């Protein structure tokens, strides 16, 4: 699916830019600037924005999606993609709902949610790494399959009646305005930061994304690493399903519809190269916060959800198109 265009001749500068110079030009600094701009704009546009409780509510716009985005970032850096994440949420949520009907307690429900997520991830991973199939089509297929199973089970009905203690994940507060989901989000961010930037596993993910054949010849177990990444993505989708189901308190087969797009947008906006090989977790964290604040701000201005999705789509294309346009224009002038 990717273009195999020959790489442009690379110019190696005599002297690298200073550490500070590189830091200022980095994608993350740009994202911080955008975040500040969005925050300021929202604060000026609506009198209801600068309110601790409103801001706390606004985090629900991104915490669940960001959990998946961290794992998806690693997967995309390694040169694969998983478009079935939103359908995994639907299936995991349906399984939890079915278990709740027969009286499962909160620990069982969480285990079922995470377990279904893992199984779905393993299914994707086995097809991609075991049979060597392209991840885009495989996960387009499982996108239909997983949500399809939810529809088979639920049809036009819905599951409810979750135990009261289950509501803690999506509706609980740890302290003052700090929600349980915020804490889970922060823990996930930290875990994935360590995993990607501080372990040999993380280095292997970059190596695979930059040159799978080279990575294989360097002794990296490419297929095993990729399979692990699919497992992680499934697991995080399961975790997101636990949080979302707990927050909504009910399960419909259309739950989290279209989230795969927002998760991929989050990852790409965070500076992860869609072709693999580069990207950072802090970038994804910033992108998640920006997207959450943009949708929250638009919501305060009474913009309907479907119009917001136009912004998300434009954002996705613009973020990738702009740097390429700049290089195109520069090349023409030079």
């Amino acid at each position, binding site marked *: *699916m990717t273009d195999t265009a020959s790489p442009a001749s690379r110019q190696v500068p005599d002297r690298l830019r200073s550490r500070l110079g590189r830091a200022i030009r980095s994608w993350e600094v740009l994202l911080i600037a955008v975040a500040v701009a969005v925050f300021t704009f929202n604060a000026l546009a609506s009198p209801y924005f600068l309110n601790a409780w409103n801001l706390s509510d606004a985090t629900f716009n991104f915490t669940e999606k960001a959990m998946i985005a961290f794992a998806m970032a690693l997967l995309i850096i390694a040169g694969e993609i998983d478009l079935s994440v939103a359908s995994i949420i639907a299936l995991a949520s349906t399984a939890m709902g079915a278990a709740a009907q027969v009286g499962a307690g909160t620990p069982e429900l969480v285990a079922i949610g995470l377990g279904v997520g893992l199984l779905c991830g393993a299914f994707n991973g086995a097809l991609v790494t075991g049979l060597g199939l392209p991840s885009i089509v495989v996960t387009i297929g*499982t996108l239909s399959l997983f949500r*399809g199973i939810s529809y088979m089970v639920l049809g036009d009905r819905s599951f409810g009646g979750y135990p009261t203690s289950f509501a803690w994940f999506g509706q609980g507060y740890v302290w003052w305005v700090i929600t349980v989901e915020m804490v889970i989000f922060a823990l996930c961010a930290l875990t994935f930061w360590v995993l990607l930037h501080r372990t040999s596993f993380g280095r292997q993910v970059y190596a695979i994304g930059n040159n799978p054949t080279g990575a294989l010849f360097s002794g990296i177990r490419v297929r095993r690493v990729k399979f692990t990444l699919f497992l992680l993505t499934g697991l995080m989708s399961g975790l997101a399903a636990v949080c979302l189901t707990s927050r909504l308190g009910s399960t419909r087969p259309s739950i989290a519809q279209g989230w795969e797009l927002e998760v991929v947008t989050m990852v790409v906006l965070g500076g992860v190269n869609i*072709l693999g090989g580069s990207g950072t977790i802090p970038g994804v964290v910033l992108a998640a916060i920006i997207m959450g604040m943009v949708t929250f701000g638009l919501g305060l201005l009474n913009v309907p959800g479907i119009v917001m999705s136009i912004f998300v789509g434009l954002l996705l294309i613009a973020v990738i198109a702009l740097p390429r346009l700049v290089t195109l224009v520069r090349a023409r002038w030079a």
Partner: protein
Amino acid sequence: MHLIRTREAQLTLAILAVLVLIAWRFPGFVTPGNLANVFNDTAPLILLALGQTVVILTRCIDLSVAANLALTGMAAAMVNVAFPGLPIPVIILGAVAMGAALGAINGMLVWKLSIPPIVVTLGTLTIYRGLVFVLSDGQWVNAHEMSAPFTALPRATFLGLPVLSWLALLGVAAFMALVRYLPLGRSFYAVGGNPSAAIYAGIDPGRTQFAAFTLSGAVAGLTGYLWVARYQVAYVDIAGGFELEVVAACVIGGISIAGGAGTILGALLGALFLGIVKNALPVVGISPFWQLAISGAAIVIAVIANGRAQRRPGRQILRKEAPA
């Protein structure tokens, strides 16, 4: 023996097997009249699968076709309501042009900025779908608002078949001729099979991909009018998620997602297979809610089968890692 190994022959057998199975319990399903109805019902899927096929042949994918269909369909319906006297051929031409323009936007982004097609069309999918809402302000255009000639065309019968069916057949014939006899059609295969070799043969891969996207968009635009006119209603969510069915039809039809391999006949059979299953479900007494899972399972099985078929020895000297 060789013939049996082709995807087209296998699919034909599978379709016949499904028909025999259904006929065994429900003979009414396989009467010519009902089969013609099933074909007519599948016509939009066939049309879109034709456009999708040439896009996939060039190593791309177009997930925006259903949103394109909804946007052009809504525009056609609103133009008809605003100017009831406007001749239908003008509306159809307008729909095709608008669909082609929307497809060309995808094509330009892929060609000039080399953004991966999956990202481009995931983005334009939501943008086009959102624009339907902006255009219509969330309102429906209902049957009584549309003019009689506008809604009559797809249903008008000619030699016993509705115009909609004829257009699908015409599309199949046109695309078969295109990929077989025209330089553009051959270059779809060349670009998908080996882009570097295509460059040396004087074919611009980006330009060819642009042409494929424009073609797919034009077909989606035409189908947009046909859809709205046939069902006599236009609203934001028409054909929601239909892009997956279209991709499914192509993958089941043996169009390789890696590009460069697949036939128009395969796409037609893939679409017919899905169409027959979809129409048979309520007859056999299975809830229509099963359809999504069935087409999902069909995609997964077809992808596995395609992967096996393409792993022929001696075709590639160095095994390329699966591209993202």
